[in-house]
């Protein structure tokens, strides 16, 4: 029995060894063709770049929940451009880290247009990762709100135009708080211990806390100006006051009441409040931050005409209004309110929604960050990262 076994196994072994040797020969052949394969890959990408001139294409990578369901299709129909729209933008720093390996080497990333927030757009431009827009082909840019044009870091709007704008303030779930909130200090109320959320978007979280301490954001130039606010956030974290630092994913926690109160973006809250009347948004009495997300034409993209066509398309108040009706963010385009009224129904109701068109009182409390010098920004980022703990 034992013997028999041995015989059969050794026969099996011989057979499989022969087969193995043949196979390893195949592997060798595979290795030989590898350089050819690599060459093919390299050629493939440059070939792809060159083909941009043929069929008209456009690829826009944006933040989640930032466009309605019709506009993408409507644009394709109106222009005949093949349009790819994705929502992979979840966090400015994360996105930067994702595209850096390619852009730093001067290679193409997939999208033609990306949507970094203004301060990140500044960084993209400084690093040479954005191309000059063909402003002549975007006549509708004349419809843009004046306050969004010509920021100090792109004084002629050569490289970027706004996508949507919004406000960071405080959102709260009244079922969990039991009362209305109106101050930044409410985030530090011991009654909400372990039920407060803050954003990983530093300028919004830190900005609110700074304003809560009576500072003006435009005065914040150095790390020393902000260190007290950092200390306050760090203390709240080690006291267990802060439950989590989140990106866009705070919406669930706010909705279910895991967060009694949190730093939040106006449009998100408007979307939640549609279904959950307990969720409210307020621009704190000490102030809220005003920000905007841009559209940049990424270095390496060759779809110049499509990029211009898209920007021109969405700066038409009719199209801009359709986007606003869904996202609930402030439109960068003038005349959207009138268009919403014309649309009637739910959209018309938005024209009177203070979250979409804030009253002048709230607007007067909004503040904007100035540019931070590179060395100072590094200190800000480092401290904030050490607090958010990850």
């Amino acid at each position: 029995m034992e013997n028999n076994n041995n015989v059969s196994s050794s026969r099996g072994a011989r057979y499989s060894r022969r087969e193995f040797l043949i196979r390893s020969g195949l592997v060798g052949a595979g290795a030989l063709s590898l350089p050819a394969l690599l060459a093919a890959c390299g050629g493939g990408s440059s070939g792809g770049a060159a083909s941009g001139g043929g069929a008209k294409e456009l690829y826009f990578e944006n933040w989640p929940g930032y466009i309605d369901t019709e506009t993408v299709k409507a644009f394709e129909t109106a222009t005949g451009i093949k349009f790819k729209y994705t929502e992979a933008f979840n966090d400015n720093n994360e996105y930067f880290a994702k595209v850096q390996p390619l852009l730093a080497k001067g290679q193409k990333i997939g999208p033609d247009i990306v949507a970094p927030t203004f301060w990140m757009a500044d960084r993209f431009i400084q690093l040479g990762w954005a191309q000059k827009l063909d402003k002549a082909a975007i006549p509708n840019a004349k419809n843009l709100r004046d306050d969004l044009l010509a920021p100090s870091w792109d004084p002629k709007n050569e490289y970027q135009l706004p996508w949507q704008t919004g406000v960071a303030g405080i959102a709260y779930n009244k079922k969990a708080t039991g009362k209305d909130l109106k101050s930044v200090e409410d985030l530090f109320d011991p009654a909400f211990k372990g039920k407060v959320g803050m954003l990983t978007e530093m300028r919004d979280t830190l900005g609110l806390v700074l304003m809560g301490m009576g500072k003006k954001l435009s005065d914040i130039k150095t790390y020393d100006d902000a260190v007290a606010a950092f200390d306050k956030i760090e203390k709240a974290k080690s006291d267990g006051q802060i439950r989590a630092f989140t990106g866009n994913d705070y919406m669930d926690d706010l909705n279910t009441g895991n967060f009694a109160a949190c730093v939040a973006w106006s449009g998100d809250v408007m979307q939640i409040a549609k279904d959950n009347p307990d969720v409210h948004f307020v621009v704190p009495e000490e102030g809220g931050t005003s920000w905007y997300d841009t559209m940049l034409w990424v270095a390496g993209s060759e779809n110049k005409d499509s990029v211009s066509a898209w920007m021109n398309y969405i700066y038409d108040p009719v199209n801009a209004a359709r986007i606003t009706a869904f996202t609930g963010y402030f439109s960068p385009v003038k005349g959207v309110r009138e268009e919403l009224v014309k649309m009637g129904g739910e959209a018309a109701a938005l024209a009177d929604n203070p979250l979409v068109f804030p009253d002048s009182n709230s607007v007067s409390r909004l503040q904007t960050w100035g540019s931070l010098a590179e060395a100072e920004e590094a200190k800000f980022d480092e401290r904030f990262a050490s607090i958010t703990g990850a």
Partner: protein
Amino acid sequence: MLILAAGAIALGAGWVSGAAAIAVLVIMFTSVVSIVWTAFVGGLETRRALAPYGLLKPGIIWLSLFFLAPLWSMLEMSLSTKKSRFDFFPSFSWHWGNYATALTDFGPQFGRSFFYAATATVLTLLIGYPLAYVIAFRGGKFKSVLLGLVAVPFFTSYLIRTLAWQNLLADEGPIVGIINKLGVERVFEFLHIMDNGRLMNTPAAVIGGLTYNFLPFMILPIFVSLEKIDVRLVDAAMDLYSTATGAFRKVVLPMSLPGVFAGSLLVFIPAAGDFVNAQFLGSPQTTMIGNSIQDQFLRQLNYPVATAMSFVLMAVITVSVLVYAKFMGTEELM
């Protein structure tokens, strides 16, 4: 064999490019061909002698290219410095300071990771051993079904399973609801399982998530080692006037230790480096080293420090595993 490994590493680590890369490939190819050729022309003896090398080849090439080469690049990176904040190509400079930073700035995260992973390992053992025991000895005809059920969670994405816990543990969720109905929240607070009336975003939630997600890795190896045990050995122990407990302690347990050892490693090592559970079930006070590495890599773009942290993690895990192996006694494992 060495030529192949060195060639694969050289290609993977990016030492060579262009014409040199092709030259390396040609050398690798030639070495493969020469072995194959020697085997073909040589007699049975030659082939028998060469067989082990042939069998090792796929593994060697795979691991050299996809494990050793990246490891080398990471080692280089961990000793590099960035010229500026957005410098994507840190330059190699024997900068050991990265390791100092990794240890001084992230001490608490390292400590937490090992504490959470060790606790989760003990919990999986306490839950998994009895389960594996019942399946192995009392499973009967349902044995394979039960074993299949253990593996069922793997059919769902790891991420989805963890996210499902968010709903279960939510402040307004079912578990907290039951605890509050029973009025035992004080007991849970005392045990530090609950914190200020919540289960989510606490250390307990993170450890619970790790325990749940890695439980099958403990059950399966223990089951395998238990199943191999001949039940007649237990009968023999009983015949020799052993009590049931004594038989378990002196016969079954020692024979199942290899499974316990393998299971512990399979749970502890990935749990120590895990970042998913702390990310979705934890709070800013429960961040584990995996989260810190991810953050340094993907948000702070601090590749040198992030790689240094990874090497520290690897070193600590290796040492603790060696100590554990020593403690468990390798002879008993054989």
